[in-house]
Structure formats: structure tokens, C-alpha cells
């Protein structure tokens, strides 16, 4: 199936980003229940589930071209958003191989990988890229292998080296993040990196997640969803550029909050890499305005309940304190209080027009 890309939409300045109805309906809605709390919500990353976003190892959607352009803009301003420590070169090649193989298999109409031994040719038609190179020889690519391939994928990626029964975040491409800094965190252990997350440490979430991840097998990737909220469809909500996006939070009004406030969902996937024994962590970001979410009946009601009853410390960590009441008030009319079935499927195949 050929994807209709929207190459000119933007994630800054005039914010021309929007979701088609089909994109709203395939949104990976993260709340199976009316209440939210941290948990080790990890499942096998296999085809199937409530959203087509889960159908491929790496999801490509209508925002692909525009997101790759946005990434290039961020890297032009701040190249340190991509950083890989020198001992991770094998993991760089692992990542390139995994993404190229997956893209070419999942979307043959858009991507082609041709291999003859270590002589590889990569064609990325949506971005107009065609390069021949020698696998394993970084001098034959225009960029280091990890940066080369992650500039051509949606979402952030980090590389975790496994040693001392721990995971170290020893590399990454992080331009679409929810307020954490790779430049600051690179080299940290799993627990140090997650240090600022409230409540989850006390609940043992990270201890259990680490133990699980240390056993992650090649060929058996896993995924989980995480979420926060973002004002405007802005991908780069980095701490680096907080002075640029922080004031957005004061621009919300009861009139514009439906269009301006976005639920930001991260489809996080974890792959054991075969050569390096490192773990690739994909953090794929999906943005949907709360106005569009409320066009799906069960989602509007559930989002209202989750935000209304959110633990204050989590609400604060996710940066929602200034506008949570306004968002709850906006969503309240969509919620009749009826009991909702568990699960995240939209339970409808078309959307009412935007009001």
C-alpha cells in the first residue's frame, strides 16, 4: 500500500501538522483503563493489536517525510542531539541493518535494499536517497551508520550497551523527545537515566524492567506505550529548547485548547541487536489533538477520566500542571459517565467531521 505523505507540514512556527481521519483512527491510544499508573506494561512487539501502528517493527506513516525534515533542522542547530560513544560501532551497524531490512520488507514500494556480500545499495524513494556502500566500512557512507539511518526514520532511538548486569545509554538520536537530554544523560546506567521519573522507582518498576531487558532475546522484540501532553504539535520539546517551547503552555485558552493541546504517545520498542549484544530502544512519537481524540467516542471519555484523576506527582512530572483543569473542562462534555470496555481500540471506523 502506498502511503500518501504530507511532506510540507511543519512541527514549528505555523504548526501546519495535522492528522488525516485515517491517521486519527490508527493512533496508538495508550489508556486501556480509566485510571493511569506506572507499570511494566511490556508485550511482544509482534504484528497485531488494537492499532495498525503495531503492524511493523518500525511504523512509517503519512508524517514520515515531514518528520525527517524536522529532524534535519534540529540537527543543523544542535548536532549533539545525535551522539554515540566510540565502543558502540558494532551497534551502529546492527541498527542500520535492522532498520533497512525492516523498511524494505514492510514497505517495498518505498524502500529497497540490495545486497551482494558486504556491497549494499539502499534506496529510500520518499526522501530521494540512493547510496551504495560497504557494510562494516563507515568510510563508505556519507554519515556514521547510526546517524545515517536514524535520519531516515521517524522517532528517537537510543543504544544501550549491556555490561555489569546493567544497561548503559551509550548512544542515541534524540530530536523529538519529551523533555530529556541525551547530551546530558549519555553514558548513564538504566537507573541513573530514569532518575527523575517519580514514583516508579519506589514501585520497583525499573528494577523489574531492567531484569527483563537484560534477558531480551534477538528475534523477540518487545514494546510498550508511554505518554505525555504537548502544547502545539511540536516534536522537539527538548530541555535544550525549553526557552523556545516553554511559553507555549501559557497560550492555551478554553477556546483553543482542543486544537492546541496534543496527547503525545510514545510507542517504545526494544530490540536485542545481534552483533553488538546491545539493545536498540525506539521511541516513536505520535501526536493527536484532544479535539481529534474526542471524535472517537471511547477515547474522549477515557482521556477525560485519566486526566481528571491523575496522581498529582505524575501530572507535575509530565508538565501538565498549568493546564490540566482546562483540559479536563474541555473534555467533560464528551463524557457521559457510561462504563467503558477495557482496551484501546477506537470501536468505530469513521469520524464525525470536526466541529
Amino acid at each position, binding site marked *: 500500500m502506498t502511503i500518501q505523505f504530507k511532506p510540507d507540514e511543519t512541527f514549528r512556527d505555523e504548526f501546519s501538522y495535522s492528522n488525516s481521519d485515517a491517521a486519527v483512527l490508527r493512533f496508538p491510544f495508550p489508556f486501556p483503563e480509566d485510571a493511569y499508573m506506572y507499570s511494566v506494561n511490556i508485550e511482544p512487539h509482534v504484528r497485531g493489536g488494537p492499532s495498525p501502528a503495531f503492524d511493523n517493527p518500525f511504523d512509517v506513516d503519512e508524517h514520515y517525510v515531514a518528520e525527517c525534515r524536522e529532524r534535519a533542522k534540529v540537527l543543523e542547530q544542535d548536532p549533539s542531539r545525535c551522539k554515540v560513544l566510540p565502543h558502540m560501532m558494532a551497534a551502529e551497524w546492527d541498527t542500520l541493518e535492522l532498520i533497512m531490512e525492516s523498511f524494505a520488507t514492510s514497505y517495498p514500494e518505498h524502500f529497497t535494499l540490495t545486497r551482494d556480500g558486504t556491497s549494499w545499495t539502499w534506496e529510500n524513494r520518499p526522501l530521494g536517497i540512493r547510496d551504495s556502500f560497504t557494510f562494516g566500512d563507515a568510510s563508505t557512507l556519507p554519515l556514521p551508520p547510526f546517524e545515517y539511518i536514524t535520519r531516515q526514520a521517524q522517532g528517537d532511538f537510543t543504544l544501550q550497551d549491556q555490561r*555489569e548486569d546493567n544497561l548503559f545509554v551509550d548512544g542515541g538520536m534524540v530530536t523529538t523527545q519529551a523533555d530529556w537530554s541525551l547530551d*546530558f544523560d549519555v*553514558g*548513564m546506567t538504566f*537507573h541513573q537515566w530514569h532518575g527523575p521519573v517519580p514514583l516508579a522507582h519506589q514501585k520497583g518498576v525499573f528494577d523489574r524492567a531492567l531484569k527483563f531487558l537484560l534477558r531480551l532475546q534477538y528475534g523477540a522484540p518487545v514494546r510498550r506505550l508511554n505518554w505525555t501532553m504537548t502544547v502545539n504539535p511540536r516534536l522537539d520539546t527538548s530541555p535544550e529548547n*525549553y526557552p523556545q517551547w516553554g511559553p507555549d503552555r501559557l497560550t492555551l485558552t478554553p477556546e483553543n485548547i482542543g486544537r492546541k493541546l496534543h496527547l503525545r504517545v510514545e510507542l517504545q520498542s526494544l530490540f536485542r541487536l545481534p552483533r553488538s549484544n546491545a539493545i536498540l530502544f525506539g521511541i516513536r512519537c505520535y501526536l493527536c489533538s484532544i479535539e481529534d481524540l474526542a471524535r472517537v467516542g471511547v477515547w474522549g471519555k477515557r482521556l477525560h477520566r485519566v486526566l481528571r484523576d491523575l496522581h498529582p506527582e505524575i501530572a507535575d512530572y509530565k508538565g501538565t500542571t498549568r493546564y490540566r483543569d482546562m483540559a479536563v473542562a474541555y473534555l467533560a462534555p464528551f463524557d457521559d459517565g457510561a462504563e467503558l470496555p477495557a482496551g484501546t481500540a477506537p470501536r468505530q471506523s469513521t469520524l464525525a467531521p470536526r466541529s
Partner: protein
Amino acid sequence: MLVSDIKSRPVYERLGVDASGRRHLVVSDAPRPLAEVIDGADSAAAPLGYWVVAATSAVDAQPQAEPATGNAVPLERRAFRAVPHLLDRLSHRLAQETVGFRLYAVGEEGFVWNVAKLAREAGLEAAECRTAHAGSLRRRVFCVHCKTITEDVTTSLAACDGCGAHLVVRDHFSRHLAAFMGVQADAEAPGELPPVEELFP
């Protein structure tokens, strides 16, 4: 949550000589009695050095061997003129060392994590390089916006030496940068600043 239980913030314990080591070196950013900074030095079974920063040009880093007392092995003392003087000498020592070596750093946070970084770059594992805090609690703060490190921060809020932003000092610590993270306090509402508190004397 300026002083919190964030897991990246180092927790220090009192130093003790690691009996499994074959050579030990203790470094301190100020002259302190050895027994005050580490337990077990007087009964160490392997050679032990103690290097301190004396903060005067009158010293010359010559090793001063101290005769062994009782069962203890000889102790080698050196005094350095300044922190960079000690670190430079240390990097040469590390380049000559073999596995079995143990390093101990005591002092202010900026000093001990600079030593730890030098050790890591020389191939020492975290288990072979122990750190303890002594002296002022002042912090090094990395400005996440402009990448400048501002030294000697004692307050909850500090102006960045690079870009001038008023940084709130998060309790998130990077061992690679040997610094805490600083984030602009009034990014959402410019000029709206919390009161300044003296937190890290």
C-alpha cells in the same frame, strides 16, 4: 524537588581500603589526615599512596616515604600545588598502572568526579575507583541550553556563566560531565522566578 531521591544523584559512603587491591592510591583536594578520609590505611596489606592538594607553590610533589609501622606497608605521600597539578601527575600514573590498582578520591563533588572521569578514561572500572565527599557542597551546573558549566553554585537558582539564563539546579547528576543539570527557571513565564535559597553551602 530540588533535593530529592533522584537515583542519579551520587550517594557517598565513607571510604575503606579494598583488601583485594594490590596497590592503592588515595587523592584528596585538600590536606586532610589520612585516617580521617579512609578506614584501614594503617593495616593495608599492599602499598598505599596519599596525594593531596596543598594549594601552595611551596610544595614540589616529591614522594615522601614514611617508614612502615607495625605490620603496615610503606606509605608514600605527595603534596601538589593545585588540582590540575595533581590530575596531570595522576594521568601519567594511570597510564603506567596494571589491573589490581585501586583509586580513592575524596573532596568536593567537582574534584572527585573529575578524578573518576580520568580513571574511567584510563580504563579503570567504577568498582576500582571509589569516591567520597568532603568540604563544600557547592555544585557544578551544566546549562542544558548552552552547554556551559557554571562552577561553585551554592544556591537553588544560579545565573548561567554562558547564556545568563536563570537556572534551576535539578537533582539530576551526570558522572560524564561531573555536573548537575541546570534548566531555565522562568522559561514558561519569563521573569517569574522562585525565591533563591542557599542549599549547597
